[in-house]
């Protein structure tokens, strides 16, 4: 990867998840220079935190690997990790973007051998696993992290642990003097692909997330199922480590709710249907899934996926939005509500309750430098007032991986048109 000087023919892509990577690669493969800015120490975003994709149930490593290979082969993409955009000045075809780059304390000499991780003793929360577990303060962000380089947590800088890490490194890769810096990047167009965040389930007060240990979110459940997750791929209850075999999935946890998220998050129904496969995979004999739903929105061509899950005897569907969750003396999460089919009240204990939390755009509440037109949920709209700042992926709508890639390709095309005009004007 060569470093190139950013000009106003450069496309800046903010966010290195599946959308940002796609937009960056699509633009770079047409010959444009791209700067890809990622907040985390590694690319891949929330896609890399999934255990499997729907509908084919393949591992996201596969799709990401293809993109990472394209990225490694393309000298036109410059990747900045641990970097955040703090300001955008200028207008279409001529932006100056301020990017704050946090120190990694590890330089490109790193071979990911792991000696520093073994030397360090301090443990810190592991955001890749949604803080369900901890990892060493010198760590590889995830198994297929790109760049494949360790990171030192700022918490150990200035402590003996940092010196231990430095001493353990055979390659001189640890640089404890790295400082936070702000750099200016020129760009003709900006693709805003900052993705989504799971809706804060603690705000849905009657569900007791945060109060009851065995009420977790769908994104946390992905980590429990993953072999690289905190339980090594076993579905265990957070409260007592017992095998969770009777699992409830609650749809529209936050979505389609005027008190929380106004929009349908679109992916959660498919995600829960997919996650019933995890339950069956881990407990083929006696795993049981119960889906509490308002209506199942298996979007687009996924109706057959829904029908297959419906035919599965280990999965029960209950047409009802759960009104309240309590905890019984065994630590079970108990769902209370009224079944719309027959209007019967139920009080049903489950080993584990998974809240299919909605998608909140990451841009919501964040002051995107410049003026961005967003819809009532905070997703970026395609509006001429946005100039050459284009929303892509989940920054623009609640999308699954497939649609996010389509959206990112479209955004890349818009950005390409802008920098083409700039190039013509300058020629």
């Amino acid at each position: 990867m060569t470093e190139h000087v950013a000009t106003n023919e450069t496309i800046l892509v903010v966010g290195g998840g599946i959308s940002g990577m796609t937009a960056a690669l699509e633009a770079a493969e047409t010959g444009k220079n791209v700067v890809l800015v990622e907040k985390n120490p590694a690319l891949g975003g929330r896609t890399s935190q999934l255990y499997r994709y729907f509908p084919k149930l393949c591992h996201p490593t596969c799709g990401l690997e293809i993109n990472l290979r394209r990225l490694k082969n393309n000298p036109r993409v410059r990747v900045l990790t641990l970097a955040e955009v703090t300001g955008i000045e200028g207008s279409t075809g001529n932006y100056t973007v301020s990017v704050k780059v946090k120190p990694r304390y590890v330089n490109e000499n790193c071979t990911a051998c792991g000696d520093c991780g073994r030397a360090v003793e301090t443990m810190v929360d592991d955001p890749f696993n949604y803080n369900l577990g901890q990892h060493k303060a010198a760590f590889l962000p995830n198994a297929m992290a790109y760049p494949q380089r360790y990171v030192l947590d700022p918490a150990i800088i200035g402590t003996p642990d940092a010196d231990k890490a430095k001493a353990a490194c055979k390659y001189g890769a640890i640089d404890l003097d790295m400082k936070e810096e702000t750099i200016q990047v020129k760009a003709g167009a900006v693709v805003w692909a900052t993705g989504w965040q799971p809706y804060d389930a603690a705000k849905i007060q009657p569900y007791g997330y945060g109060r009851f240990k065995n009420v977790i979110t769908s994104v946390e459940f992905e980590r429990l199922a993953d072999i690289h997750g905190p339980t090594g791929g076993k579905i265990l209850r957070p409260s007592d480590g017992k095998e969770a075999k009777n699992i409830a999935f609650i749809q529209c946890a936050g979505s389609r709710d005027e008190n929380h998220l106004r929009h349908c998050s679109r992916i959660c129904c498919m995600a829960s249907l997919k996650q019933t496969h995890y339950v069956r995979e881990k407990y083929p004999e006696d795993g049981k899934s119960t889906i509490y739903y308002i209506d199942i929105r298996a979007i687009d061509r996924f109706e057959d996926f829904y029908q297959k899950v419906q035919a599965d005897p280990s999965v029960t569907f209950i047409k009802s939005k759960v009104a309240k969750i309590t905890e019984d003396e065994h630590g079970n999460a108990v769902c209370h509500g009224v079944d719309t089919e027959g209007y019967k009240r139920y009080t049903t204990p489950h080993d584990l309750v998974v809240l299919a939390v909605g998608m909140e755009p990451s841009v919501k509440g964040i002051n995107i430098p410049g003026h961005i037109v967003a819809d009532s949920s905070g997703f970026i709209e395609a509006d001429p007032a946005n100039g050459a700042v284009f929303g892509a992926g989940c920054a623009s709508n609640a999308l699954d991986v497939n649609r996010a890639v389509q959206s990112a390709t479209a955004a890349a095309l818009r950005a390409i048109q802008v920098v083409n005009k700039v190039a013509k004007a300058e020629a």
Partner: protein
Amino acid sequence: MSANTALAEKYRNNFLKEIEEQVEMGDWVKMCMQCGVCSGSCPTNFQSAWEHPPQELFMMIRAGKREEVLTSSSMWNCTSCYNCIVRCPRKLPITHIMHGIAEYAHRLGMAPKMQPTRFFSGLFWKNCTHTGRVNELKLSMGLYFKDGLGAGIKEGMKMKDVAIGLLKAKRLNPFELFGGHKCKDQKGIQAMLKKAYEIERSRKAAKMAG
């Protein structure tokens, strides 16, 4: 033709439209997406008298079950705890709709006559508008004797310890049974209520005719 038959004729096969036009907040009924959070959150849902939870009532309205909805005692069981309003994902004012349907059923004379909430509401209104003050003794006695003398004495005996306690604490004056205390300008209050009643009646009559 009575008001009931006239309106039934007007909205034949379109009970939802009738509710939308005639019932306070009735235009919200169509917004229900049948998620069931209101029913699950309803504290009275455990009672056997709560025949149809709100979301079922809304579905019955849409299904045109006019007779069953209007003669139901379900909406009269609402305690106005507002749990459903707080939690409804579509922000339906469910408590108000319950009261609206109850009031409409009452207006048409279809509400169950001896349903305790309905009976008590009538009793309370008569009681407090008569003198401009609530006469608690007459009010509670009226409720006890709702189902006749025998049942009233039985109910009263059940509460006798409370009543004696109230007497001792001077919170219950037995002489209230004869007349009772009044507000200063009884005629003024009654004139005001009469005017308000006329305004309301003409508004509702216009709605029902229109």
